[in-house]
């Protein structure tokens, strides 16, 4: 019994001890905690938190501080459509800067009148401020200050790629005082960057294409990424001086297969005098690897700083789908005001160089997949040509201006996903729901309704664009003459299930018909279909064929069914097309397909309406297009629109090129119909007129030249209704009449 008692006691003791051991902490702290906490005073009283200012007017006191848009930029001259003025060139300008100026001059931002300009770009070449460089232009400072609208640089935009010179490559030494000008510069560090004012540029080669540019090379997305090397670097090292430590110690990490980090000191005239004991060995390894091959075959690419913070290899790595691993402490990445680089690069730390292999090894494969896709996306959208880099710079500034006026700008996701900021208009809508994106977010839950507007707003509010994809479409007809075909089409539209409105663009010398609505078929209980007739000859005189897509103000839906007045489309075809388009709002979805091809003998692009096995265009004579794409069409580059106006033709080809350029996807052709013309058609000359054909061919080449590449993408598939021509009772089929249309 004694033993039993002893044991019981002992156990009890243990339990109590244990209890105290574990519970002491939690119990005590919890109880004391609340008491103790509640007895403490709050950090500030409500009076202190809501303190009123002692002075009436805030005093920005900008002179002593670095520039901000609020203090150094004059918004007054920037209306709803801010313009950029480029000074006329006088004096020496490098080839690169000439390209920069020319893309701005030919862009839709440009104006020839300095008085209506909001932003000024000097024709003084400021790209290279290194006096030792051959591209350096002297006497920049005085030439800038002599500019007629300079005013200490206010509202000016200055481009700079190289600042400072040997030996310290100081970032600050530009050779001139930018004053209140916005500096768009490469290799800028966090310390000197004027936040929200300056713009960080990528460093690009002299050979960087002016327009177009190489399309992304890594279109494959294998998972997991199975590239030959994990991490690669091939480049110069400097042995001595600023920025040399990082590259000098890279050889520690080199293992010849997985991690290829090879450097050479063989550059410059006197490398043999400056070389150190590793140079010979390094050079041997260096010659074993080919730079391009390395980039293409490596998952990660080291982007180590050179003398300056930025380097060419950043863009080179992006282009080849090699995820940049940054070794450049303090560098502000290109356009980081809007581009979210966390999606595309990995930051390493120069101070922790030896941890880099460990770092890249621990990136999970699904992250690598995302990073690599993003490199391609960004390269394609913002970096692959000088035009894109310059336009991105300008768009960022213009967006700040619109933000200041209307408190809206493109949201971050637009900048960092396809089709990107250059493919969306800043003033088209304020939500991604308005834009043609591949996928829409799920419907949000119902928000409390907003209060009824009691009084009208003081001025007419901007009307928000319709939501994508929406449940209905608007038929936008382009009519040059009435015909039986038109009446038949109108009747078909009236019996369509999803048509909400008809907009009839009347482009003829004869008086426009006065049509208010279309009556439905017998037995159709819906209200008559509203019609708006727009007389193009009075509304858009001289607009030519492009006028057909001008009256966007009359279109209340995101889906626009662009139709030629005599297109022989059935109601079923209209509805099926719309049902498909709802799944692909970013593409052109329709019936008449055409193709393009490279004509080896002429060395030019050819246009084909032959019925081959593939197509690259769907003509908007009978196709659905997103309203935002038509808005973009209206804002297309002036050269393109001019080509259409001159030819009074090709507007459909231009729209196809434009949408393909934005989406990188082919259009979608539906069902079997290929013809969309009956005997009557709008071209005075015959449809098979060779001249008409030649004209379209030359348009295609003009467009390809203007973009710098051929944007059209081919496809081999068409979309049919599920039971199309299947051996099953027609009673089961939803789209029965479509089957009878053979071509």
């Amino acid at each position, binding site marked *: 019994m004694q*033993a039993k008692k002893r044991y019981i006691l002992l156990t009890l003791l243990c339990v109590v001890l*244990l209890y105290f051991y574990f519970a002491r902490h939690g119990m005590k702290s919890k109880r*004391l905690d609340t008491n103790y*906490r509640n007895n403490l005073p709050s950090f*500030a009283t409500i009076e202190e938190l*809501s*303190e*009123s*200012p*002692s*002075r*009436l007017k805030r005093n920005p006191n900008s002179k002593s501080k670095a520039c901000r848009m609020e203090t150094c930029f004059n*918004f007054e001259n920037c209306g709803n459509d801010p313009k950029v003025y480029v000074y006329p060139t006088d004096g020496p300008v490098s080839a690169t800067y000439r390209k920069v100026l020319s893309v701005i001059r030919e862009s839709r931002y440009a104006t020839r009148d300095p008085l209506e300009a909001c932003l000024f770009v000097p024709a003084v070449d400021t790209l290279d401020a290194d006096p030792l460089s051959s591209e350096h232009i002297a006497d920049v400072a005085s030439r800038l200050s002599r500019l007629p609208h300079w005013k200490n640089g206010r509202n000016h935009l200055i481009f700079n790629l190289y600042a400072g010179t040997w030996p310290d490559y100081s970032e600050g030494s530009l050779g001139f005082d930018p004053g209140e000008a916005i500096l768009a510069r490469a290799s800028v560090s966090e310390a000197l960057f004027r*936040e929200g004012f300056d713009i960080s540029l990528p460093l690009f080669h002299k050979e960087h294409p002016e327009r177009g540019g190489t399309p*992304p090379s890594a*279109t*494959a*997305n*294998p998972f997991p990424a199975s590239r030959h090397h994990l991490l690669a670097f091939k480049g110069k090292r400097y042995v001595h001086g600023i920025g040399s430590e990082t590259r000098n110690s890279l050889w520690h990490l080199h293992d010849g297969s997985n991690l290829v980090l090879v450097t050479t000191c063989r550059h410059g005239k006197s490398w043999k005098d400056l070389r150190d004991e590793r140079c010979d060995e390094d050079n041997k390894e260096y010659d074993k690897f080919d730079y391009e091959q390395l980039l293409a075959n490596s998952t990660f690419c080291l982007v180590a700083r050179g003398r300056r913070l930025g380097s060419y290899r950043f863009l080179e790595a992006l282009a080849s789908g090699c995820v940049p691993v940054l070794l450049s402490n*303090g560098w502000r990445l290109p356009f980081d005001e809007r581009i*979210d680089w*966390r999606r595309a690069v990995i930051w390493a730390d120069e101070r922790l160089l030896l941890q880099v292999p460990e*770092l890249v090894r*621990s*990136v999970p494969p*699904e992250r690598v997949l*995302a990073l690599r896709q993003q490199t*391609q996306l960004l390269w394609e959208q913002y970096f692959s040509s000088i035009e894109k880099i310059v336009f991105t710079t300008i768009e960022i500034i213009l967006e700040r201006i619109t933000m*200041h006026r209307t*408190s809206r700008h493109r*949201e*971050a996701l637009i900048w960092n996903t396809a*089709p990107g900021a250059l493919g969306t208009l800043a003033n088209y809508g*304020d939500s991604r729901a308005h834009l043609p994106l591949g*996928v829409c*977010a*799920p419907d949000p*839950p119902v*928000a409390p*309704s*907003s*209060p009824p507007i*009691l009084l009208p707003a*003081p001025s007419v509010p901007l009307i928000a*664009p319709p939501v994508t994809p929406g449940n209905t479409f608007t038929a936008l007809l382009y009519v040059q003459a009435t015909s039986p075909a038109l009446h038949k089409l109108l009747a078909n539209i009236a019996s369509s299930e999803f048509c909400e409105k008809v907009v009839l663009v009347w482009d003829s010398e004869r008086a426009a018909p006065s049509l208010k609505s279309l009556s439905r078929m017998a037995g159709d209980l819906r209200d008559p279909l509203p019609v708006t007739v727009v007389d193009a000859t009075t509304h858009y005189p001289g607009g030519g064929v492009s006028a057909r897509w001008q009256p966007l103000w009359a279109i209340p839906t995101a889906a626009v069914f662009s139709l030629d007045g005599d297109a022989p489309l059935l109601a079923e075809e209209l509805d*099926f097309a719309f049902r498909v388009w709802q*799944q692909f709002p970013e593409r052109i979805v329709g019936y008449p397909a055409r193709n393009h091809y490279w004509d080896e003998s002429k060395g030019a692009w050819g246009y084909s309406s032959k*019925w081959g*096995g*593939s197509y690259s265009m769907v003509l908007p004579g009978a196709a659905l297009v997103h309203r935002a794409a038509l808005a973009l069409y209206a804002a297309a580059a002036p050269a393109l629109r001019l080509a259409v106006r001159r030819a009074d033709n090709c507007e459909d080809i231009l729209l196809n090129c434009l949408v393909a350029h934005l989406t990188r996807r*082919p259009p979608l052709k539906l069902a079997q119909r290929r013809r969309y013309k009956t005997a009557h058609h709008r071209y005075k000359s015959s449809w098979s007129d060779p001249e008409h054909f030649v004209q379209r061919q030359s348009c295609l080449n003009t467009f390809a030249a203007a973009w710098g590449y051929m944007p059209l993408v081919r*496809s*081999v598939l068409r*979309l049919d*209704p*599920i039971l*199309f021509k299947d051996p099953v009772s027609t009673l089961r089929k*939803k*789209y029965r009449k479509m089957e009878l249309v053979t*071509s």
Partner: protein
Amino acid sequence: MAADLHLKSSKQAKYNISYRKIVYHRFFVGLLLFIVLSLVFTVVFNAFSGSAPRSDFYERVNLEAVNLPVQKVDGDSPFSAPRFVNCTYWNCFNVYKCGRGGHDKISIYIYPLQDYRTENGKAVSHFSREFFEILETIKHSKYYTPNPDEACLLVPSIDTLNQKAFSSQHISQVLGSLKHWNNGENHLIFNMVAGSEPNYNTVIDLNTSSAIIAGAGFDTWTFRYGFDISLPLYSPLAYEIDNTQPKQKDYLIISSQTNVPSDYLAELQGIASSSNDLLLLDRCKNDINDYTKRCEYTTGKIFDYPEVLKNGLFCLVVRSARLIQSVLMDVLASQCIPIIIADTIVMPFNSHIDWNRIAIFIPEDNIKNLLKIVHSVSNERRGELYWQLRWVYERYFASIEKITMTTLEILNEKVFPLSARIYEDWNMPEHLYGPVNPLFLPVTAPKAPGFTAVILTYDRVESLFTLIRKLVRTPSLAKILVVWNNQKLQPPPASEWPVINKPLKVIRTKANKLSNRFFPYDDIETECQLTIDDDIIMLTPDELEFGFDVWREFPDRIVGFPSRLHVWDNVTSSWKYHSEWTNQISMVLTGAAFHHKIWSWYYTYKMPAEIRRWVDDNFNCEDIAMNFLVANVTRKAPIKVTPRKKFKCPECTNTEMLSADAKHMSQRSACIDKFTKIYGHMALKSVEFRADPLQYRETGSGIPHLYPDIGAL
């Protein structure tokens, strides 16, 4: 006899007692052993677990200590150096201090509490509740370390939250005297109210040297980008606001601040007098000190604060003496869309939280256009802003604890960039925006790599061989992978396999599971995989090649041949599986379908485990699960290729075939129902189209067809 009996029983009793004793003994010894063992275990666990390494050597900071050691601050003790204006993460932060101990997260040390007093005995600073909560959050977070030598960040335990409540001069001296100060390197200073009359500096007026400042109310000049952290100004009122919402909001815009600068107030009065859209509130004249009441400017109508905020769709937050206002937190908590009027303000946690998803910014010059701007905000954007508000508030701002944790996470992401979460994780609630599509690059996949056919087979060798012979005639086939799902039967020897010109590999599985067909085998080296049943021998090479070409155009979708539909059954109020001839499809069966390899990886590692278990337990529905998975992530429908054909060969009349079974069908309906419940919504999308070759059923054009052999039954 009785005695005998008695004796026997007593003997028995004795025996029983001794037996019991032994049992007791063993029981207690066992218990003791257990206790001792568990004690040892806890000690060992504590010592080796990452959270508090060597905690037994360093005492955790005691935040509730009552009798603090008094520390006199001498008038002539040295000051710490003034704030270094040009600090960046790269030149002021000592990264070598971080990551000691090998775990990839920052560690934070809190200085022991001390009672600092001036020479005349006055406290240097008041220890506030909020500061206590900050320290306590750090102490209980996974980042805390009691060991200053392995700390990546150090937090002085002097309350610096309110500029007005401490003496700058003395605290600067205290900071300089801290044991590990070293010019403020890797120190973290918390501050909420910065600056005081008349300048109202936007940064704490303290000699912080190169310490990181987590502070509220920075402007773009004082904020050191990538180094400092911008905090919200905590509002004790916001904490009390619950998440209920009225059905209808009564006011378009509410201005509830009592400290709007007078020139801006004049502009607002002008707007309010001409429009009913702006409800302009101020202090009530009769009770100036009552902060829970606000009165309408002109009529004097009384409103309760902060309850009134819930009644507004937009609420103004105007700069005043300070750039940041505590009303911002009240407004966020009330789910009223903030309109922020404060030039050059640095918003809280601006490095990670996208304020354009929560608020509208109006430049101070532009107040006159307030109504115009608000009216131009579309309904879609209003909805987006509105739904974002409370989510963001509850995640990052709802309490001092949340604010502190967000600060620590941002610092952690800075030091260990790989642990960083992407924009969507920070800013886009999955319940509103859905998951992120892992294949977002808009491309047509390249043709050259081809596809890998993955054949799941059990024992139908003959059919398998026929299939293999047919498959290899497809030009783009790169490789065949046979997943041998039969553990009892050896696959036939190599000599019996058909002789083919493409690589073929047999993988033997460990268990007969349907999910094996979706394992992301390393042997699948192409992006695209064709999963195919061993009895699908009716597809022609043209059809397969065309299917692959269609997949290339839609690389993020399932592209395949046999299709099915889900329909809502009103009678049973449940989803039904439909395999008849329909005009719509929402699923493509993986008996013959192309998909990207990443979906196999998703199926194996990211799909809800419950679904995978269900599939393996019921030996069914793996294809439905795959369709749900892809549709849920991409919000896109699958694509059916080419006309319908009989997928079960007419001559195979054997009844073992699973699909023939009526029970099988009802089970599949149950699957759809079950998966819908697991995902919380019907993920499948139905469409009315299929993909055919451009020249399908086209005759008489005289041009040879690209894919001639399509659509034969």
